[in-house]
């Protein structure tokens, strides 16, 4: 009997399939053979450790990275990074990137005819505090067209990248905004089969963190894979 490290496998329907024809680029970029189910070893339950020394305070304020203020609606995005058990994930790296208020990225691959903002790069990072909390100050990203299908538009979103405690808890996802009419038309959002799981990628309006006369706030909690409640034995 070998002890399993016991990170829970994903619940059915809560993760996207690799092959999702509505998102055309998956066609040539998904594995066609089944993944090989493998035991979790020390290699998977460890992962790179980043700390508060790896980031600067200004890294989490995307409105203060240039000489002037970016154009757009200033917002505060905050939340907690949690394990499935509900336990916070403290001191873990959170990376974000997003389009500017006009829906344009400062990237050579972005040819959308919308203005760049010299005061907005759209990249941020922070490390969660002892209670797993993080906060970014940014501007609300714009929607933008893409060529996946006729009249395709991405809903407003912020990309999130997290590590958690282990290489197997690595997560890249996107945060969406409540009430966005583009959500149900979006192949990426709709790639998650379970409607409840999809909705968890939509932030909520957060009156508590709203700063009067300054900025609206949105709350976005992120849940990483966690261990089974009790260690299990496997053959």
């Amino acid at each position, binding site marked *: 009997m070998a002890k399993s490290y016991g990170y829970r496998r994903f619940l059915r329907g809560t993760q996207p399939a690799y092959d999702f024809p509505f998102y055309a680029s998956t066609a040539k970029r998904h594995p*066609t053979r089944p993944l*090989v189910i493998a035991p979790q070893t020390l290699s998977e339950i460890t992962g790179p450790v980043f700390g508060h020394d790896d980031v600067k305070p200004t890294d989490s304020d995307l409105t203060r990275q240039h000489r002037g203020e970016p154009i757009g609606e200033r917002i505060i995005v905050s939340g907690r990074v949690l394990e499935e058990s509900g336990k916070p994930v403290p001191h873990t790296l959170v990376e974000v990137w997003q389009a500017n208020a006009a829906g344009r990225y*400062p990237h050579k*691959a972005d040819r959308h005819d919308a203005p760049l903002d010299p005061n907005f790069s759209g990249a941020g990072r922070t490390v969660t505090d002892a209670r797993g909390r993080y906060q970014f100050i940014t501007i609300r990203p714009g929607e933008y067209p893409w060529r996946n299908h006729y009249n395709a538009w991405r809903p407003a979103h912020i990309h999130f990248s997290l590590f958690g405690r282990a290489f197997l808890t690595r*997560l890249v996802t996107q945060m969406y905004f409540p009430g966005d009419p583009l959500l149900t038309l979006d192949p990426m959002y709709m790639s998650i089969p379970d409607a409840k799981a999809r909705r*968890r990628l939509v932030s909520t309006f957060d009156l508590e963190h709203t700063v009067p006369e300054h900025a609206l706030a949105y709350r976005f909690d992120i849940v990483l894979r966690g261990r089974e409640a009790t260690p299990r034995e496997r053959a």
Partner: protein
Amino acid sequence: MRLVASGSQTVGPYLHIGLTWLNTDRIAGPGMKGERVVIQGRLLDGDGVGVSDGLVEIWQANAAGRYAHPADRQQKALEKGFRGFGRIPTDARGRFRFSTVKPGRVPGPGGKLQAPHLNVTVFMRGLLKQLSTRIYFPGDAANAQDPLLHRVPAARRSTLVARRRARGVLEWNIVLQGRDETVFFDF
């Protein structure tokens, strides 16, 4: 409280904006012990075309077989400054290249040692959820007994083993589809 893990989404085509700051293609600095190795390869799509907007992340133990992580409680030396992490974007032709040291053996299921390997996570536009795989080293006698390689159908094991190109230079490609499709793991 029982929560459900958040759903994965693609990194999209503009991943570099948020992720480049942490790019690292020299995983082991000059002060690190071990056999130096350069690993190079390409990330290839179903048409055999290089993926120009991909990202490869590496996680590895040091030459003694110790991870720079609190869950690794082995009594093995860990050099100061060794993190064991690499992040390498693919170039316009889908190529990636990094230098490191060959890791030592780390325990696997039942405490049995695994063959030396690098843990690899792959991201790209068109991929809704990351892929996990491993790089093993050619000619290492431990490969024959490795518990994870043993899970892989024999005909596909070679996709996980790098090929020697020159002294200290290995080649390992990530093939997403087709006859030589790389083995990806579900942990």
